[in-house]
């Protein structure tokens, strides 16, 4: 577990404290430091992941041209990141809409699978039902070690889907498994900074796909 550098904000525990001005100044200073840190983590992630983004964007565009769709999945905050990615691909405010499905969207399917076969299989079982070889699997796990995400990426790879993983810390198992074709690692040990950078990476990935599709049409 990471230790957040907020210890300096707890100089005392004082039930008689009445003046909030000192606390408010500390809070604002902490926020400023985190904002700067977030900007730096995001810029580093975009820079370090540039080759992966280019390659993954081109590979995804190829599959979209052949009728492929995205299946995205993750747990907790990463589930909402999967939802957000699906929303971006499917209904962008600018650019062409592309097929994408969130595997955390259907509570009937999720709870049925979790109840009957276990939570480790909630995403892989859905891929078995839906996915075709031309499709794309995108798994989100800040630790890189979420079992159900890794199992689903393995299953997707076995079915010849393009597999993309987004993770943090040192990448965890996701960064070393050979079943992930393109791994986007945010080198930070804060879940929050990882998720903020992943949002930027997804936007960059989407943008690369759109650019590739534009260029392919331009070449025709």
């Amino acid at each position: 577990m990471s230790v957040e550098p907020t210890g300096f904000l707890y100089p005392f525990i004082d039930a008689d404290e009445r003046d909030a001005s000192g606390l408010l100044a500390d809070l604002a200073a902490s926020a400023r430091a985190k904002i700067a840190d977030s900007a730096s983590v995001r810029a580093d992630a975009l820079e370090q992941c540039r080759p992966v983004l280019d390659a993954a964007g081109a590979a995804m565009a190829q599959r979209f041209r052949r009728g492929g769709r995205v299946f995205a999945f993750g747990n907790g905050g990463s589930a909402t990141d999967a939802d957000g990615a699906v929303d971006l691909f499917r209904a962008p405010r600018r650019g062409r809409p592309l097929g994408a499905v969130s595997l955390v969207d259907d509570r009937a399917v999720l709870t049925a699978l979790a109840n009957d076969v276990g939570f480790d299989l909630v995403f892989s079982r859905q891929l078995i039902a839906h996915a075709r070889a031309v499709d794309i699997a995108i798994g989100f796990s800040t630790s890189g070690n979420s079992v159900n995400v890794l199992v689903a990426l393995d299953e997707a790879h076995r079915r010849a889907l393009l597999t993309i993983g987004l993770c943090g810390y040192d990448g965890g198992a996701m960064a070393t498994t050979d079943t992930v074709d393109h791994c986007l690692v945010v080198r930070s040990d804060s879940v929050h900074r990882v998720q903020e950078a992943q949002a930027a990476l997804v936007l960059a990935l989407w943008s690369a796909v759109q650019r590739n599709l534009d260029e392919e049409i331009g070449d025709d």
Partner: protein
Amino acid sequence: MQPLTAPVSVPVPTLADDVASDLASVALVLARRFAARATMWCVSPSWPAHGRHLAVEFVHPVIVGKRALPAVHLDGDIVTTVRLLARPGDIVAALGTADDAAAVDVLRRCEPWGLTGVWLGAGARPPAGAADHVLWIDAADGADATDAADAATAMRSGDVVLLYHLLWELTHVVFEHPGLLHTEPACGDDVCITCSDEGRLAEVTAVVHGGRAEVLANGNRETIDVSLIEPVVPGDLVLVHAGVALTTLTSPSRCSP
């Protein structure tokens, strides 16, 4: 052909320095409300992923040992649902751009319902008074503040996620200062000055005989005279002064400029 897409480069954070101070103030307000047993109702009509992320952040903290706080994401008819579920003193946290009509509507009803409204978003800012508290990502350099697609990009760049991550973290820091949790300011900073000069905002809940109506004002039920503005229907927002409704609000903006 005309390029359809934005360049691959993703805007770097453009959070203004004062957003840090805004975050500090709102964290103090939230911690005090939570300490008084408030629930935070999270609504994000056009960005459901953000609303869910905000709620799970508070309910299931990423840092072991931090207390779970009651936050619930709602979708569908959010005005009807928040009206039904929220209790005076609760919090409404809306996420979205300033042109989000559903967010505008639920936030302007926070005052009659006795709730604290917080609006988190990006792009062009909402008008003054649209919410008790606004935490905002201004348009990036080179982006068009009035362009909906640029605002959407700002909603997705990670900055809005950063806003609620910090809001969560700072709220928990305030909990380490128990002496400050129960000190409400003598004069609430969540009262719209313009409105208080004009009268109180109330929501009609039922029409009764003789030019009178039952309304919610600041979370309290009362009966007022609506003979000057009849007909009214439940859901109407009216300005009330000394027990008399003076006008019906039709504009989506809660306060006159």
